[in-house]
């Protein structure tokens, strides 16, 4: 699912977040200034609706960049696969 376009980043939504957002993935062009995982989360939350509700401060959502758990300052770039993960419940 990794983005194959030079300009777009692939967002992947899992489990509860997929249900809430109504889609499992989308391709986006990052607006200027969105360069880290924290920026990306804030930008998505600014869409409003389910995005604002699920990504509000205090809601636990982990971000994985190219299958590795990201920190707030982890860079995000075109071509990356960035997943939004609700708290895990396996085992």
């Amino acid at each position, binding site marked *: 699912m990794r983005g194959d376009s030079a300009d777009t980043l692939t967002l992947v939504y899992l489990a*509860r977040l997929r249900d809430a957002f109504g889609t499992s993935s989308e391709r986006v062009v990052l607006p200027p200034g969105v360069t880290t995982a924290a920026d990306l989360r804030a930008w998505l939350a600014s869409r409003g609706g389910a995005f604002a509700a699920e990504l509000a401060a205090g809601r636990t959502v982990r971000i994985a960049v190219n*299958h590795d758990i990201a920190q707030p300052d982890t860079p995000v770039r075109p071509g990356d696969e960035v997943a939004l*993960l609700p*708290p*895990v*419940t*396996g*085992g």
Partner: protein
Amino acid sequence: MTVRVQTGDFDVTRELAELRGRDPRVGAVAVFIGTVRDVNGEATVRKLTLEHYPGMTEKALAQIVADAKARWDIFDALVIHRVGELAPADQIVLVGVTSAHRGDAFAACEFIMDYLKTRAPFWKKEATPAGVRWVDARASDDEAAARWKAT
């Protein structure tokens, strides 16, 4: 070191025989098997659906096993986790660890499970008489994983 995500069931006897491989250095095999319960809190669970994040899941499990291997004196480890639709009493997860002595095998096996529960991208959705719902993460699982940082 083997990590597998699969829809089908697993045969514990066969998996453990393969893990041991008749290696005469092995003096201890610690095993954990997680199974589906038919209750969660007040609700009766009729069906459990497990989903994961293909690609990341295998990578995360391999990292957890590598961390265990770096920390304890173990020979080998096996993790099998099922996904898809499961019913009460079904097997969900198998963790097996071999070592020379039981202490390392027990500790590594528990560590792998505690980290799997808090780091590996799996999610449970349960069907109850009141409807279908995503299972909430438990604070007790975070606490169990955090213990390993303190020791």
